[in-house]
């Protein structure tokens, strides 16, 4: 029963906040939203602990029947109607997700409470954040794909609302619109996938689907291929992977807590969750698994290169998020389901930490986000510096941190996986190298060297803010020791994933050594950033503005340019051509014709008897004339 009320805490809080809006004081609004999140977290933990004693390690609750779907397929003759329920299903996989969503969500709400204190629309902000948590919980708890889709669209909506939270600036609104439209492409693919699934299997319940699919379809069947491809499309859109990745860097226009919550820790990992949830289906289509791996592999390299050239601290973190989700996708594609979910969890911890710490730094520097204008913060903001360093160490996967355990778990399974292989292993290793290089570049530019920031630095002294950050830092460090047991969920794999016995012995050594090599390279290569005078760094920053390759990388390897020229420009051109809308013109022509006759006929009803008489005569003449001829 506890499970049923879980999404309702934030929902009630959202409704109250949106109803009373500015009538609530800061304290009241904070109490409502953060309190709801606290209850949510508490409930989640209780649920997770009670999961062990539950039968089959599954808790499910049926709230009400939403609607029924009829069938018109002869192949599924047994069932004629399939009920879509409002029902929640909690197993080890969704348990990890609700812990991340409500736990990390709670800490970020806590941070946002301080960070957004002076905003005039504070309660609207908290309302949207709560609504996001509701949608995300529905997404991860859904027992059928329709309910999952509801949550899926819900988080998309909240993402849109929160990116465009400061809607007075046009740039933010454009970013929000871009995020919404680009993810819509993926969502459409996913909807088509759902239609195809229902059409061929006659059910959308996730558990039923998994068992039906393994029973009815053979490996590499045509249907499984197309359906998995469509679902992959949805996952790619939501998780900002190639080729629908362009919205994520722009999404950083939103407030920093939003970037931490939605665009790093939770929503963008929904795609990973979807694929892991549908693992039985994806196992039936090794070809699509291979695509998943390649999507992840190419995205992590692309995002890594783009992150190397950015000058905005939040954009670096955004590209880094893309790259880390690339790792998760790569792991999923290789069949390393539990490693990917593990990485999802640890990534949520350290990326939320990185974003929030970056937010604290930006806050202290009066909303300066350009890293070339920071520098030397280690002396001014020692607290933020140490936390950021912890986050970066996890990101680089230095042994002992949580990132190390999860990332090595993924990389370790790549080489021998039948759907990934050595090429993708090298991709991942190279990606790890780039990760450590851009992390070092970021750290050197922001925290080392001479101070280039000219204004006064006002660090927030709030204890609550620091508490949230420290909790996240602790989680990032020890998160690797949380044991996740997914055996009950991911044992349905029908393919033998590893062709064991051919792994060279140097694999692990290389994987562990890579981040250190990256640090060494950047220590030497980015020496200027550590020691040079402010003028020197400014000159370098200016030089990089004009360098062709750096500019290419900075603009996300030309994808924005490509899409704007291949899709947006022709589309607006056609739209301009059809400005007067041909179809509309046809309809308006009909309306004009009707109006014309209305005018003629109403003019004939002029009330003048003599005209009527003349009309009779005319009619008579016509009738008689026609009869005679």
């Amino acid at each position, binding site marked *: 029963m506890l499970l049923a009320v879980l999404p309702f805490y934030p929902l009630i809080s959202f409704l109250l906040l949106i109803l009373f809006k500015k009538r609530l004081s800061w304290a009241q609004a904070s109490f409502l939203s953060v309190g709801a999140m606290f209850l949510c977290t508490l409930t989640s933990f209780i649920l997770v602990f009670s999961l062990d004693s539950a039968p089959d390690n599954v808790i499910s609750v049926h709230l009400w029947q939403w609607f029924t779907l009829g069938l018109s397929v002869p192949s599924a003759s047994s069932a004629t109607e399939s009920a879509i329920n409002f029902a929640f299903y909690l197993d080890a996989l969704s348990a990890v997700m609700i812990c991340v969503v409500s736990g990390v969500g709670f800490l970020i709400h806590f941070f946002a409470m301080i960070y957004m204190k002076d905003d005039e629309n504070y309660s609207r902000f908290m309302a949207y954040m709560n609504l996001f948590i509701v949608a995300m919980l529905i997404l991860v708890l859904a027992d059928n794909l329709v309910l999952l889709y509801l949550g899926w669209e819900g988080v998309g909506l909240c993402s849109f609302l929160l990116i465009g939270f400061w809607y007075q600036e046009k740039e933010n609104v454009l970013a929000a619109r871009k995020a919404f439209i680009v993810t819509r492409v993926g969502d459409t693919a996913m909807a088509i996938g759902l239609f195809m699934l229902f059409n061929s299997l006659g059910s959308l319940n996730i558990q039923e689907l998994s068992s039906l699919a393994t029973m009815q379809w053979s490996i590499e069947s045509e249907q499984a291929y197309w359906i998995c491809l469509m679902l992959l499309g949805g996952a790619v859109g939501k998780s900002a992977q190639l080729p629908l990745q362009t919205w994520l860097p722009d999404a950083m226009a939103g407030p920093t807590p939003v970037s931490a919550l939605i665009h790093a820790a939770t929503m963008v990992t929904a795609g990973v969750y979807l694929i892991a949830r549908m693992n039985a289906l994806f196992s039936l289509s090794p070809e699509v698994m291979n695509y998943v791996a390649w999507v992840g592999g190419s995205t992590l390299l692309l995002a890594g290169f783009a992150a190397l050239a950015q000058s905005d601290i939040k954009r670096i973190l955004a590209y880094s998020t893309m790259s880390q989700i690339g790792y998760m996708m790569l792991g999923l594609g290789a069949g390393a389901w539990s490693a990917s979910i593990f990485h999802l969890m640890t990534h949520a911890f350290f990326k939320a930490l990185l974003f929030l710490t970056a937010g604290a730094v930006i806050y202290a520097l009066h909303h300066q986000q350009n890293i070339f204008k920071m520098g030397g913060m280690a002396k001014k903001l020692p607290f933020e510096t140490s936390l950021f360093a912890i986050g970066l160490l996890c990101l680089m996967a230095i042994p002992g941190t949580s990132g190390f355990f999860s990332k090595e778990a993924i990389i370790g399974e790549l080489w021998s996986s039948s759907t990934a292989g050595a090429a993708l292993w090298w991709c991942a290793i190279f990606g790890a190298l780039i990760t450590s290089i851009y992390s070092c570049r970021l750290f050197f530019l922001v925290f080392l060297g001479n101070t280039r920031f000219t204004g006064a630095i006002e660090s927030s002294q709030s204890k609550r803010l620091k508490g949230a950050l420290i909790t996240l830092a602790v989680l990032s460090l020890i998160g690797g020791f949380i044991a996740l047991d997914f055996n009950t969920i991911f044992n349905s794999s029908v393919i033998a994933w590893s062709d064991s016995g051919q792994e060279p012995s140097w694999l692990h050594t290389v994987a562990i050594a890579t981040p250190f090599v990256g640090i060494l390279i950047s220590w030497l290569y980015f020496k200027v950033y550590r020691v040079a005078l402010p003028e020197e760094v400014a000159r370098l920053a200016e030089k990089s503005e004009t360098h062709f390759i750096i500019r290419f990388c900075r603009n996300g390897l030309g994808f924005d340019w490509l899409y704007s020229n291949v899709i947006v420009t022709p589309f607006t051109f056609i739209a301009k051509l059809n400005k007067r809308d041909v179809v509309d013109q046809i309809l308006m022509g009909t309306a004009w014709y009707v109006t014309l006759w209305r005018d003629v*006929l109403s003019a004939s009803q002029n009330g003048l008897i003599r005209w009527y008489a003349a009309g009779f005569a005319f009619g008579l003449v016509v009738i008689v004339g026609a009869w005679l001829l």
Partner: protein
Amino acid sequence: MTTIPLEHVLILASILFIIGFVGVIVRKNTLFMLMSLEVMLNAVGVAFIGAGSVWQAADGQVMFILILTLAAAEVAVGLALLVRMQHCFKSLDIDCLNQLKG
């Protein structure tokens, strides 16, 4: 006794009918319109009488008597309306009665 050809009778009736009709259309005074209506009715009557004499049938004359009765009734109603119209509008202009325009 000279017989008048039917064509002549019909031509006379047509001319009378058209005169009456033109009178209905062009006169604005309702009294004159009623009088023109009488002319039209009589034109029809002439046509019936002519046809009756040609075919040596009494039907034509019966029809004429019916038309005469109709005309009498019509005049009675029409003149009553005329009186009310004069009372209401202080005029007999038929174009005053245009309240039913569409």
